[in-house]
């Protein structure tokens, strides 16, 4: 289908139609992307292109999928958040932080910022994946958004005087109740989902799926909703085609952006200038690192104790047997095997690859035999992984609870006049 120009000759960049095509594809591939005209104006730093670019940057950088709440934020607020986000990602140009937030100037800087983001990651694809129409019943396998707290904690618990410990305990009880509710609701949902899959087996045109999902069955039940779904799907297809076109033609865009950069005067490293003060204060900048350090130190202690014990036991035993050549060969083989294993383990967190869990949502498919292709997950495997995760987390929790109790005991000793109400047994 798509023509693929792997090697674009330099002359192609000079072709008249290539650049507008690329920019048009880019603007079609971004959600509510600005018209190609805006890009052109931004090159010449025209003020009228500024607010559209602020808004686009905001859409790209905001972590939540576009909702009406976000879109209705004032331009100043959006601009401030954009600056903050770019700064935390390490955006190098100072000029951006100094731009006025009313959208009166700076479109060229904003264009540079947008290109910086586009160069660093597959932005149009990511945004498309975020806004994707889920056609199947999906379940995420990773834990990244399972019970994520919704955004920064709302500052409604401001200074209200001393907090009663009973209030804390009541909240904990409420939380436990909500967990139980979640469990039972989810069990019911799984049962119903499984039924629907079972009853609609054999319906789907796609053989590998074989049954309908709830979304698809809903579409049959409610044709108006189905039409809407169809329209959304078609729009997504259009954007997909735009992204593919962008990827084919983006080389000429980068050549162009180099020229745009060239028109800006190079910046002077200015140590003195302090950009605008931003609203909220970092919560615990180094706190995160401290926690990890503490955990690792505790682990190191445990490992050291265990290893020393085993080493002592081994020396006692092995001292007795001979040290022939086959002995040392066997030992070398063991060493190499262990090194390889541990190396593979290290890859798990270094590269986020290897036997790590695949991320992102997966489409649930019911098959009597449970057969799965190469790239598909099998529920039994995931269950095993989750069980081991559960065991690990339970151990961590128990250890933390023990630590808390220890600290509390120390507190009781240190602070006079403190009444200690032990937490309810778990």
């Amino acid at each position: 289908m798509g023509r693929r120009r792997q090697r674009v000759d330099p002359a192609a960049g000079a072709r008249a139609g290539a650049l507008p095509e690329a920019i048009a594809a880019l603007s079609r591939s971004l959600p509510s992307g600005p018209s190609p005209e805006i890009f052109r104006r931004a090159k010449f730093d025209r003020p009228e292109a500024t607010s559209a670019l602020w808004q686009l940057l905001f859409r790209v950088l905001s972590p939540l999928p576009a909702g009406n709440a976000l879109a209705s934020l004032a331009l100043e607020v959006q601009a401030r958040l954009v600056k903050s986000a770019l700064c935390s990602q390490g955006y190098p140009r100072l000029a951006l932080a100094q731009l006025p937030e009313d959208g009166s100037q700076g479109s060229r800087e904003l264009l540079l910022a947008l290109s910086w983001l586009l160069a660093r990651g597959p932005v149009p694809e990511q945004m498309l994946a975020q806004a994707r129409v889920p056609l199947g019943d999906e379940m995420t396998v990773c834990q990244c958004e399972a019970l994520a707290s919704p955004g920064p904690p709302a500052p409604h618990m401001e200074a209200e005087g001393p907090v009663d410990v009973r209030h804390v305990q009541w909240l904990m009880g409420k939380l436990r109740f909500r967990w139980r509710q979640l469990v039972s609701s989810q069990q019911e949902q799984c049962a119903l989902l499984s039924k629907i899959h079972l009853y609609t087996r054999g319906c789907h045109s796609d053989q590998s799926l074989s049954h309908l999902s709830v979304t698809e069955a809903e579409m049959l039940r409610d044709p108006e909703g189905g039409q809407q779904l169809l329209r959304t799907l078609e729009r997504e297809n259009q954007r997909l085609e735009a992204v593919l076109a962008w990827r084919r033609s983006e080389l000429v865009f980068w050549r162009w952006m180099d020229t745009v950069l060239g028109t800006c005067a190079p910046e002077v490293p200015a140590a003195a200038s302090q950009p605008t003060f931003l609203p909220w204060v970092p919560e615990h900048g180094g706190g995160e690192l401290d926690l990890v350090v503490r955990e690792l130190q505790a682990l190191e202690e445990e490992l050291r104790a265990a290893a020393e014990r085993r080493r002592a036991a081994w020396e006692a035993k092995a001292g007795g047997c001979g040290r022939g050549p086959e002995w040392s060969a066997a030992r070398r083989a063991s060493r190499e095997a262990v090194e390889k294993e541990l190396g593979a383990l290290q890859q798990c967190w270094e590269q986020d690859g290897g036997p790590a869990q695949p991320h992102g949502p997966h489409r649930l498919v019911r098959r009597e035999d449970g057969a799965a292709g190469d790239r598909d997950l099998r529920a039994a495997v995931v269950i095993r992984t989750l069980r081991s995760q559960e065991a690990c987390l339970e151990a961590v929790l128990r250890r933390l609870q023990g630590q808390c109790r220890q600290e509390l005991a120390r507190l009781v000793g240190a602070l006079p006049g403190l009444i200690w109400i032990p937490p309810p047994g778990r």
Partner: protein
Amino acid sequence: MLPADCSRRLVTELQGALDACAQRQLQLEQSLRVCRRLLHLPRALRVPPRAPRAGRPACTPSPQDLKELEFLTQALEKAVRVRRGITKAGERDKAPSLKSRSIVTSSGTTASAPPQSPGQAGGHASDTRPTKGLRQTTVPAKGHPERRLLSVGDRTRVGMGARAPRPGAGLRDQQMAPSAAPQAPEAFTLKEKGHLLRLPAAFRKAASQNSSLWAQLSSTQTSDSMDAAAAKTQFLQNMQRASGGPQPRLSAVEVEAEAGRLRKACSLLRLRMREELSAAPMDWMQEYRCLLTLEGLQAMVGQCLHRLQELRAAVAEQPPRPCPVGRPPGASPFCGGRAEPAWSPQLLVYSSTQELQTLAALKLRVAVLDQQIHLEKVLLEEEVGVQQRSAALRTRG
């Protein structure tokens, strides 16, 4: 238990956890409503997690079931009206529609009209008759459930013309009896006819186009044009050179990512340690390997700690960048930017209700444990903070 100022943070965290649970509960209930509606389950009845195989005794439909039937009738009529309007545009292949229609009529049920693909019912006038038949008989027959069912079956057969003389009503009674647990009589609609549903052609076309486009996207991702990649790198270098900002060795996002990786490392190492400690070595070779593994793990932990110290030093020495952000937005849209994410969803195959339920329950359990651990950490931090403050007070005083 704790002085006021530190328990405030705990309360805030608890509130956050409660909100997250409430949000998740709302999502679940929304999707439960949708599922129940599809299966025609009345809201009061809940399907037990293990639907018992034992059939329930044949019983007469309750008044509640009659009401459900009435709602269903109205929904059917509406669906027929709507579908008539869509029919003009729809293209249909005749074979499956004829087949399903004949099966539909032969078993004497009329409630199958809605699940059939739109564009089909409207064109066939006979579909309206069974609906009307249903309606006419429901109204007067409140007190005679048995008779009502019979008359519905009769009407259907009459309406559709002579078909295989399956005793519609009798069959229905029999079907009701062994049906799994508490389902209203029309619940077997999806159960019986579910496998005959067909998605509309326009949708099928769009969906297959959609999946092929996503597949193309994944493949272009992996074989990115080298020229474009080089051009991008060049552009980024030019940007860096032309900019006045400090050359940050590590942005806040990267620090957070690294900290996350090391946290993950800690839990993986701990897991491995537990595995080794709990394994019972059979012979000396195994013992030796176990020993080597433990010592190797210890060395790795040491490396991680070293890396953490480096990170802390780097964070401390960097000039405070004037962008205080509690949580950098856009840091990890989905689990951190991977090298090759699969853009379109892959499959997760399960084989039974039980398996699905176990999977979901475990997922939730792990999430809850995560939350609990987070709260315990907050508590611990606050306790340690109190200790430090009181120690400072004492030394000062």
